[in-house]
């Protein structure tokens, strides 16, 4: 019998997720040995028509990374969904929009205008804009539509599982693939990473006082970071307490606070709101002015609390665009 078919695909993302597959190092050989990879943009040259040619459901699993920003990405997502038994949102962008979803704070026109006219490095006196359809002496070119909203994968197609992270750690990926290949699959919709917050894996946790109250938040460049002490105890906003584990506190190990790329735990419906709630609750200040001062160190709340999850914010997008 033939080996299970696996597809990787790359939508609105930096490419790190594609690379992260390679982070499996020698384990990659195990994977390659165990499966037929039918698509892997970063490594192999398969074409869309190859996929279209396949029967529906003939791909065992697709691991799709990146957010859905263009019509083309959306089409590919739908196509792969049709051809796959299991659709996995791979990485923060596919799971919840990721960095690209910051664009949800701007209207399409704002973005276009900046990119093709206003950005300092752009020289475009005719103010030419890309067209979705272009014809010249009988031949026509189609460009994908640039959407108004950046979406997570599950806002476009039905998703079976999520592998979180920016990018997912090899350990998480390996565990997911093993589950997949062994057929021992958790209930649909599960995020394939531990459902407890990162603090649990963080070596700094014990240095966090029981009765922590933060005088004021400060940004990482404003102080010399203690390499052992809990970041919150140093007055640095760390998303660890509200962010799903699985990375083994990689960033804190590198003396940087957690920024929340593994997304919320299963009982949280809005990552940013929850993070904000806990980080502000532990302040010391008791009246408006003092509280505002204490929060000066978080100048961009959206960028801080929704760094990887704008698409999954209950408001989804800046509402008045």
């Amino acid at each position, binding site marked *: 019998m033939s080996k299970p078919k696996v597809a990787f695909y790359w939508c609105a993302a930096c490419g790190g997720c594609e690379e992260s597959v390679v982070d499996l190092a020698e384990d990659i050989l195990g994977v390659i040995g165990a499966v037929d990879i039918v698509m892997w943009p970063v490594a192999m040259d398969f074409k869309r028509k190859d996929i279209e040619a396949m029967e529906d459901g003939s791909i065992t699993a697709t691991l799709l990374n990146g957010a859905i920003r263009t019509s083309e990405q959306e089409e590919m997502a739908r196509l792969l969904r049709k051809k796959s038994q299991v659709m996995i949102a791979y990485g923060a962008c596919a799971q919840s929009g990721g960095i690209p979803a910051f664009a949800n704070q701007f209207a399409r026109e704002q973005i276009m205008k900046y990119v093709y006219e206003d950005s300092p490095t752009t020289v475009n006196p005719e103010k030419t804009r890309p067209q979705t359809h272009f014809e010249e002496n009988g031949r026509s070119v189609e460009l994908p539509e640039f959407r108004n909203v950046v979406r997570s994968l599950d806002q476009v197609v039905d998703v079976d599982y999520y592998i979180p992270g920016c990018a997912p750690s090899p350990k998480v990926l390996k565990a997911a693939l093993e589950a997949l290949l062994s057929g021992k699959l958790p209930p649909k919709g599960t995020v394939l990473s531990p459902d407890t917050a990162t603090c*649990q894996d963080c070596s700094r946790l014990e240095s966090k006082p029981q009765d922590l109250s933060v005088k004021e938040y400060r940004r990482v460049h404003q102080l010399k970071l203690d390499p052992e002490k809990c970041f919150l105890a140093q007055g640095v906003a760390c998303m660890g307490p509200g962010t799903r584990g699985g990375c083994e506190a990689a960033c804190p190990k590198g003396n940087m606070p957690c920024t929340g790329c593994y997304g*919320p735990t299963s*009982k949280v419906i809005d990552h940013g709101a929850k993070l904000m709630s806990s980080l502000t609750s532990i302040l010391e200040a008791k009246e408006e002015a003092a509280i505002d001062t204490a929060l000066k160190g978080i100048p961009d709340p959206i960028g801080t609390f929704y760094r990887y999850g704008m698409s999954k914010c209950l408001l989804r997008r800046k509402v008045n665009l």
Partner: protein
Amino acid sequence: MSHHDHEQKNGTHGAEEVRIGVYVCHCGSNIASMVDVEAVAKFAKDLPGVVLSRDYKYMCSDPGQELIAQDIKEHKLNRIVVAACSPLLHEHTFRNATKRAGLNPYFMHMVSIREHASWVHTDRAACTIKAKEILHGAIARVALHKALEKAKVDVNPAVLVVGGGIAGIHSALTLANAGKKVYLVERDATIGGHMARFDKTFPTMDCAACILTPKMSAVRSHPNITLWTWSEVVKVDGYVGNFKVKVKRNPRYINEDLCVGCMECIKACVFKEPKFTDEFNQGLSKRKPVYIPFPQAVPPVVVVDPATCLKLKTGKCKQTCVEACGERKAFDFEQKEKFEEIQVGTVIVSTGFKTVDPHKLPLYGYGIHPEVYTALEIERLINASGPTGGHLVTKKHEEPKSVAIIHCVGSRDEHTNKWCSRVCCMYSLKLAHMIKAHTKAQVYNFYIDMRAAGKGYEEFYNRVLEEGVNFVRGRVAEVTDWAMTPEEEGRLVLRVEDTLAGFVRRIPADMVILATGLEPQPDAQDVRRMFNMSCSTEGFFLERHPKLAPVNTPTDGIFLAGACQGPKDIPDTVAQAGAAAAEALALIDKGHVEIEPNTAFVVEEECSGCKTCISMCPYTAITRDEVKKKAVINPAMCKGCGTCVAACPSGSIRQNLFEDVQVLTEIEEVLVRES
């Protein structure tokens, strides 16, 4: 809503089919006049899970409650929604009705369509729609309710009374006489507090000692009372019914059980003459390093002052005291401070007050002119067992020809304390009366307002007026020794605007008495923290409710008695001490406390042990299990505010009756527009 929540929702009622009964109350015409109750009931019928929906004239009436009970049995209802008046009014009524019918009371949810709808609107159509929407929220919510039990916590019958003034003494005795175990902890070497220093008590003028000392010795001899003087509470853990208290017992250098209070050692002390400040007599007399605060002290046991005792200071002393003690061997210079751990169910805090330090008001010349006294000093001077054997004389041992009493020293004063100390007017009258009785002196009272509000107080004021005591209405500007006339020479002069006569007067006096006000104890804030109470802006302990819970504190099982809660005279103090004892007794005799189940709990497998919640809880109900490295909430200490739930960054804390999914569902459904 995200798929996670779908899980949760299904999780909450799982297999069992939800069968909701809905009851819309007319409340006579209170609701029905502004809400189309029939329409609302009809609307509810079609909502998911609803098997029965009625409107009824008076749901809270017996037949109304009976209706619910019957329906539960007949129609196998497992959820009840009542739309009527405010749940704050009748929630318990309908919970009980539900319970009587054998259904867990927390499957009943109540919403107000009276206070929040029919009574505040005039547009019947709009009001009816609002009622429907409120009800919709309740119906969706109740489906997610869970069976809950009130936790019962046994109440340890032992009581801790902190402070051995008249308040502590009275509540301790009341409890002990009721057969309860009492620990009475007093910081001083003797109990009795301020009252033991007084000579007489207003307005009846019975002698303080005569009424207090019997109670003091009763405390000592009572089999149910463990008395620890020279001791302080240093740590309090636990919660109502189960407090764990640590008491520090300072070394007295005397074995209390062996000392019989014969005072031979005091006579024998190497210091032939007393030469150290006698605190009990307000420094108006001297004592020796080994002393007994006052003759009727309880316990009648001497105490050695390490600061002045040669043996303890230098190690070199003939120790004639030990010789005098002889066979009794009560002395123990090796004594160290020791700690006692006790378990009690309730605590009565009666730590008393301090009087204002008149040095704060130099214009009255206290500490500058020797003939300026505090009222408490005069209490000692005029007291038969005091330093002058009860003779009121100046430092030159002359009887004063004129005595001035200045009211409101450190009371009703922007510069010191704004509040009225409540007792000064009356004790000033008392002193005036006694000075009249003891001497031929002219007595002047300088007052702002006379406050004689109490049983027999105004009458006492009149009596003192008739005795010829002078009353000058005006705030004294200064007490000076600057004599303008020969008559003033060598005496003190009070400069005051007589606001009734309307001019400034100079009134000479040989003794000036400052009626110093009452203040919180200097360490009130520490005590407050230790017992998890709060303080008013003045710094006195705050009662739970000024009228309806005057001896309760925000912390269950901890009660207040006496002036630590605010300035109080003896009658009020004793009354409050009795009330506090009764509150404690009520808890003890019930045997257990029931704790509302709307408490928070940690879902262990979801908790990352991040500690965020711990600092959220003002009741220290949340601790960290250092083995599992997870947070744990003690349901008995949790008061159910839910602050930790909202703060938990991973959503691992839930609050019974207010789970995220329950509140969110209610929010979502009340926002669905009905037509």
